[in-house]
Structure formats: structure tokens, C-alpha cells
């Protein structure tokens, strides 16, 4: 370990907050050599990024404080070096790419300038940097590099932006590339492309790759070794196959078990009454068509999943039905009445019956309202449950229903974890006893272990209360576990629809096929097979 190119040894980092000191990581050690790929796997709050940030000297000190350990690069302790010495290593010997390339690229400078700067900052002449930039852009697959250098980050797609970040990071052929959740914000097909590119480049340059991720699929796809982190500590490490097939630590076991897409597939009960029927919905923003002739039917007790990548129009569909946006044309019948033609007064009555759970509970819950206020607000609006004692009783019941306890009612959203917050959002939706709940990426932002719990909760509600679900998601595994019917959308149109079983086992549309192929399986062996199959195809 000591002779590794980069090794983190017994690193401990504290964060000082007003509530006391948080041990962000404790005694973390890992190492990497050229040519290797190491995955650091963990859920949010596990401290998986902290050690990488310490390597790059980008921890905010304060509040962070390195309380122990050392980081050896070529045998020299980075932590003992001057800022100037570390600056010379950053970018040149060790480079880093980040989760959200849009915010990590400077929005006000052309990308060409930003890539060149990586070189000029390390003393390369400007003309050489310019030439190399064009070369790099070509290499990472950005079309028309001569034009692209003059463009700004916002003019590229998400996948292209991550390619730009990669081009920038690799400009000086670093020995080690640290990638912090590089594909998390990307669509599955793009994710596959970016991971493939990283692998290619690694093969070309022989660099070591440290990949920080929460996604078992990504680990299975790309990594040689994996370090599993939980609560700031390494709980398990080893080769990817060993860890997947024989996890030793209970946390790792739980994590692997929670990975979606392995349960039974649901089958839609026949002859249920139709609740919602949308016909030929269209919505156009300027030159962009968000919805084109989209028709769906949803029966009572059905859970209909709408799958698609970003920009496919799946959220617009939900928002149009809810009249959060006005569709340009089409009809949407709720129990035979056209929602789109209702007056505000008529709509108010229907609003009780259709509720929505949003993607990010941190944002969808008003931070200044207590849980009690959040849940009871719907009753205020619709003049329900006037009795105070009865209200408290109902809130208590709802909280218990979603797996929280009654004393949570007086707290505020920020005092809960992400999964708990989503439960509150669900309780809020349930308070109005709706017949349909629209879930817009309702579990996408959650950690896998929590995701599984929330899915289980929703499924339980569907069975017990007969609620219908319109389930919008991009994660096929989750859809497979929850939906009985699937609609696949692309560019505002429905390209395929059918029972879940059929979509997953015998997709007919090429796009559906591509989606399924690009989805990563947590099992490294399965993933290896897929990779070979994909390469042959």
C-alpha cells in the first residue's frame, strides 16, 4: 500500500458546526495506482467524497478540519505541502470531475477557454493549449470542435458537458482522475456513453481512476476494486465481484439487497373502472414540442408508469393533467369530466381527488411550516376536518401510516432525513384521501435503501386504499418493481406501451430496447455479459 501512487492513510476529517463536531470521515484509508479503477461506494452522508476533496485541497477549511492521517502522493505527504506545491499537482498530476458539470463549469466563459486554462495555469503556452483543446474536444466526441470552443456551457447537453469536464481533466494527462458521481445526473443511455468514454481514455492514458458513486450498477460496470463507506467509515473493501457476491458487512448486504429491479412483476387486474383518460394532449413551448398527441388511460387501482429520459415530456404530461400548465389542445377526462375545461371552482373539488408527490421533498415541503401544518393545510383549503382534536388525531394516523411517529408533527422539514421528508410529502397527499396520486420522480432523489422502503409504502397504500398511481420515473429498476403498466415516452411522443412484463421481457420499439440495454445491473457478472453483448451488437 505504501508504494501506491496515491494513498490515503487513516484520514480523519471533522466538520465543525454550531451543534458540535461531526466526524465526516474516520480513519479512512485507500490507495490507487496507475491503470486501476477504484470505486468509493456510499449513500448520501457516508462521507465518500470527503477524502477525495482532501486530496484535491478543495475542502472548505474551516468548517472542515483534517484531524489525522496523511495523503501520500509518490510517497510525499500532500497535507504537509505548501499550497503552491499542491496547486502544481492539482490538474497536472491528479485531476477531478464532478457530479453536476453545469454548475462546475464556469457559466460565463467559453468552454475552450476553460479547457485551455487547465494548461495555461500550469505554464503551457497559449497556442499549444489552444491546439490541444481542439484535439481533446475531438477525442471526447464533441462535434465541430472549432465551433464548440467558442460556446458556453449552457449551450451543451448534460452528457456533452460531462465530456467537456473530462476533456478538461485529461488535458495534462494526469496520473489519476477522481470522478465524483460523474454520471448521476445523466440519462441512462448517456451514462453508458460517458462510462464507456472514461474506460477508453483510461486504457489510452493508463491513468488511475477513482470513482465516487452511490450506484451499484456503475461500480459493476467500471470498477476493479470497491471501498464501501457508511457513516464516515470504510465498512468493507475488496474486488467488486467479491464484495457483490459475498458481502461481509451487514450494511453492504442491505445495500445490495435494496437494489431495485429484482422483485416480482405486477400484473394489472382486469376490468377496473376507468378513472382518468387523456386524449391527444399537445403542448408546445416555442419551437420545442413537449407533448404530441399523448393519450393515456388509467383505471382505478392501476399503477401506470411513464418512462423516458429528460426532455421526453413525461413531467409535462403530469403537469398538464394537473393544470399546473395549460395544454395547447386535447382532453383529459376525470371520471368523465374534462379537467382541461373546468372552471377554477370546479377544479378545486377535483384537486382534492388528485394529489401529487414531487421529486425532491426538500423543495416540495415549505421549510417554514411544521409537519402538522403541512399535512393539515389541505384541510384548511378544502374546509375539511374542522375539529381540532380530530385533526390532531388524523395527522397522527397519517404519520403512522407512512411510518413516522406522532411526535414528529411539531417538527420542521429540515429536521428530517430525505426519506422521512418524502414520507411527509406522501402523508400530505394522503390527507385529502385522493383517488389518484401522481408521483413525479418521487423516489429518484433518494438513496437506494430508502427508495425501496418508499416504494414498499406506496405499494402498500395502493393495495390497502385502492389508490391509482401515475408514476413518472427514469429508473427502469424502480418502474419494474412498482408499475403494472408502462408507457415509454421520447421527444413528447409515446413510443411504446404495454404491461410491465411485456415491456421488460419483449420490448418492441428500438428506443425501449436501447433504454433497457443501457440500464446498469448491480451484478458485475451480469453487467460484464451485457457489455460483451453490447460490444458485439
Amino acid at each position, binding site marked *: 500500500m505504501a508504494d501506491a501512487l496515491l494513498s490515503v492513510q487513516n484520514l480523519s476529517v471533522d*466538520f*465543525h*458546526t*454550531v*451543534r458540535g463536531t*461531526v466526524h*465526516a470521515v474516520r480513519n479512512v484509508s485507500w490507495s490507487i495506482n496507475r491503470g486501476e479503477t477504484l470505486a468509493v461506494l*456510499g449513500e*448520501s*452522508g*457516508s*462521507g*465518500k*467524497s*470527503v477524502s477525495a*476533496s482532501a486530496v484535491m485541497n478543495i475542502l*472548505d477549511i*474551516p*468548517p472542515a478540519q483534517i484531524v489525522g492521517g496523511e495523503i501520500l502522493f509518490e510517497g510525499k505527504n500532500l497535507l504537509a505541502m505548501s499550497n503552491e506545491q499542491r496547486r502544481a499537482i492539482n490538474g497536472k498530476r491528479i485531476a477531478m470531475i464532478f457530479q453536476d458539470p453545469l454548475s462546475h463549469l464556469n457559466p460565463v466563459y467559453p468552454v475552450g477557454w476553460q479547457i485551455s486554462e487547465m494548461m495555461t495555469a500550469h505554464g503551457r503556452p497559449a497556442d499549444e493549449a489552444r491546439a490541444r483543446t481542439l484535439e481533446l474536444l475531438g477525442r471526447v466526441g464533441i462535434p465541430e470542435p472549432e465551433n464548440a470552443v467558442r460556446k458556453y456551457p449552457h449551450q451543451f447537453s448534460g452528457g456533452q458537458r460531462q465530456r467537456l469536464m473530462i476533456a478538461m481533466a485529461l488535458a495534462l494527462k494526469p496520473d489519476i482522475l477522481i470522478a465524483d458521481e460523474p454520471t448521476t445526473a445523466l440519462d441512462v443511455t448517456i451514462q453508458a456513453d460517458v462510462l464507456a468514454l472514461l474506460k477508453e481514455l483510461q486504457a489510452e492514458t493508463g491513468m488511475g481512476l477513482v470513482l465516487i458513486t452511490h450506484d451499484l450498477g456503475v461500480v459493476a460496470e467500471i470498477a476493479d476494486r470497491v471501498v464501501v463507506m457508511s*457513516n*464516515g467509515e470504510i465498512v468493507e473493501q475488496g474486488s467488486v465481484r467479491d464484495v457483490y457476491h459475498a458481502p461481509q458487512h451487514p450494511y453492504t448486504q442491505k445495500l445490495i439487497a435494496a437494489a431495485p429491479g429484482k422483485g416480482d412483476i405486477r400484473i394489472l387486474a382486469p376490468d377496473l373502472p376507468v378513472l382518468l383518460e387523456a386524449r391527444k394532449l399537445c403542448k408546445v413551448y416555442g419551437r420545442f414540442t413537449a407533448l404530441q398527441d399523448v393519450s393515456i388511460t388509467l383505471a382505478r387501482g392501476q399503477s401506470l408508469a411513464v418512462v423516458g429520459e429528460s426532455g421526453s415530456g413525461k413531467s409535462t404530461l403530469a403537469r398538464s393533467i*394537473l393544470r*399546473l400548465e395549460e395544454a395547447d389542445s386535447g382532453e383529459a377526462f376525470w371520471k368523465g369530466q374534462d379537467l382541461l375545461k373546468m372552471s377554477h371552482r370546479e*377544479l*378545486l373539488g377535483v*384537486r*382534492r381527488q*388528485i*394529489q*401529487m408527490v*414531487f*421529486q*425532491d421533498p426538500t*423543495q*416540495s*415541503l*415549505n*421549510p*417554514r*411550516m411544521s409537519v402538522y401544518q403541512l399535512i393539515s*393545510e*389541505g384541510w*384548511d*383549503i*378544502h374546509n375539511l376536518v374542522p375539529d381540532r382534536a380530530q385533526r390532531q388525531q388524523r395527522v397522527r394516523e397519517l404519520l403512522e401510516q407512512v411510518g413516522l411517529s406522532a411526535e414528529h408533527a411539531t*417538527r420542521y422539514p*429540515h*429536521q*428530517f*432525513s*430525505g426519506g422521512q421528508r418524502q414520507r411527509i*410529502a406522501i402523508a*400530505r397527499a394522503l390527507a*385529502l384521501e385522493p383517488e389518484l396520486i401522481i408521483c413525479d420522480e418521487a423516489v429518484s432523489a433518494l438513496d437506494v435503501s430508502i427508495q425501496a422502503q418508499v416504494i414498499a409504502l406506496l405499494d402498500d397504500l395502493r393495495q390497502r386504499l385502492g389508490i391509482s398511481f401515475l408514476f413518472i420515473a427514469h429508473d427502469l429498476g424502480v418502474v419494474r418493481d412498482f408499475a403494472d403498466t408502462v408507457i415509454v415516452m421520447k421527444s413528447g411522443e409515446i413510443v411504446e406501451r404495454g404491461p410491465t412484463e411485456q415491456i421488460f421481457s419483449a420490448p418492441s420499439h428500438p428506443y425501449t430496447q436501447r433504454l433497457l440495454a443501457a440500464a446498469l445491473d448491480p451484478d458485475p457478472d451480469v453487467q460484464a455479459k451485457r457489455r460483451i453483448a453490447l460490444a458485439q451488437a
Partner: protein
Amino acid sequence: MSDLSTVTPAPSEKQRTWPLVSMLWRDKLAFVSALVLVVIVLFAIFGPMLLGDLATSQNLRGRNSPPFDLARGWAFILGGDSLGRPMLARLIVAARSTMLVAAGTVAVAMIVGATLGLLAGYLGKHVSQAIMRLADVIMSFPSLLIAVIVLYVLGPSIPNMILVLAITRIPIYLRTTRAEVLEVRQRMFVQAAVVMGASNGRIILRHILPVVAPTLVTIATLDFAFVMLAESSLSFLGIGIQPPDITWGLMVSQGRPYLTTAWWLAFWPGLLIVITTLSLNLLSNWMRVALDPAQRWRLEARSTANG
């Protein structure tokens, strides 16, 4: 970066407010500022009651007595003014009108501006356009002309002064509120309220206003100082507060002719304006950091470093 929230124990409400006070105590500058403001507010509340007569008792033959001379009693420690009244007593008594004008102006401007801003931000394009044009008109309307019109038509008095100054400050709040509302209305929890069927009024008051309020309060703090100075300038031009009302701004402008011969007439009230402004700004700077979870660590870190 990882989200650390799940690692941190969820603190209770009590824990959340007390650290603010202890954080304030740790930042000595902000703490002193808060203390100064409390004292000034106390002056404003009790000053006229206790010192009202002392502050108005003239003595023509004992005018402009220099400061730091206890011969005429403690009230003259800061000197006497051009009518032989004790500066200290007058400064304390003037705190009330000064605060009244400043606070009144800021309150009126904020309430009117924020209301219009909320409407402009949340209601349709036409309302918004109309309100914004109105703001443009107010902004190009010279404040001096407003002052002269109001004072001519309604006469000089503290409420009218508040009216004049408030009119000129409304656009600041209006524009800020509108800009914030345009952003906040896109947030998920507002959409969630819409889905539940909440009315516009409910959304504005229950969901948007509480989010916009901290920004408004920050602006108000800074505006407070601006208003004191604006009021002083109007007095300088002869269209501001007039005796027998008394404010620090008026005292500065009345002391102006004596700047070279009896500096204390204009200096003390000027100093008080500076101190108040400084305290408000320091406190507001501190608050901006303290109330923003993304920046709070700066204070926490400093406090740990200090001890």
C-alpha cells in the same frame, strides 16, 4: 459533496435559537452593534418622557457651551446648542423622532412595496407590467419634488415626512420582492400548494411571503440608514423636518453653520447617525450569514477558532 444532514442529529427548536444568541456573543462586533441598537431604542422610548423638558429649556445667553464641561451639570457633558439647550438631552430626545421617521418610512415602504411586488410577481403579466411602470415613474420622480409637493399640500410634519421618504423607497422593495417572487413561485412547494387547490392569496401569504421576508428585512436594515441620511439632506435643503420637531438629521443640518466655531452641534448627531448605521449594517451583515445555512459555518468556524 455528500449531504451531511442525515449524520447530524435533528436538533429541537430551542437548540436552534440559542446558538444564534451565543453566536452573536461570540462575534463581538455584532454583539456590540446589537447592544448599541438596544440602547438607542430605549432612548427613543423613554427619552422624551424623562428628558423632554430639559431638552427644550432654552438659555439664549448660555448658548454653544463647549462639551466636556460639567459646570452646568451632566446634561451639558456634550455641550450646549445654539439656544443653550443641553446637547445630550436633545440627542436622546431626538432619538424618538429619528427612529420614528426611519422606522416609519421603512415600514410603510416595505409594506406597500412588498405588497405591490407580491402582486406584480404572482399575478398576470398585465398587472405586473402596470405595477412595474408605476415603479419606473416613482423612480424617475425626483424625491425633492415629492418632498416639496407633499410638504406644500399637507404641511411639514413627521407623518408627512414619512410619506415623502416612503414614496421614494417603495420601488426598492417592489423590485426586490417581485424578483424574489418570480423565483420562489417556481419552487416545488408552491406548486405543491397549487396542486392542493390553494388560492392565490393563500399561496402568496402562506408560502411566498415567508420566504421573501428575510431578504426584505435585510434591505430594510440597510435602508434604515439611508432614510436617516435622506431626512438629514432634506433638512439641509430646508424641505425636511422642521422645528419644533427634532431629529438627528435636523440637528446636523442646524449645526452646519457652526461647523467651524462650535463643532459639537453637528458632530454628535452626525456621530450618532454613523454609529446607528454602522451597528445596523454590522448586525445585518452578521444576520445575513447567520441565517443562511450555506454560509453559517463561517461564523461557527470563527467562533471555534476564537475559543
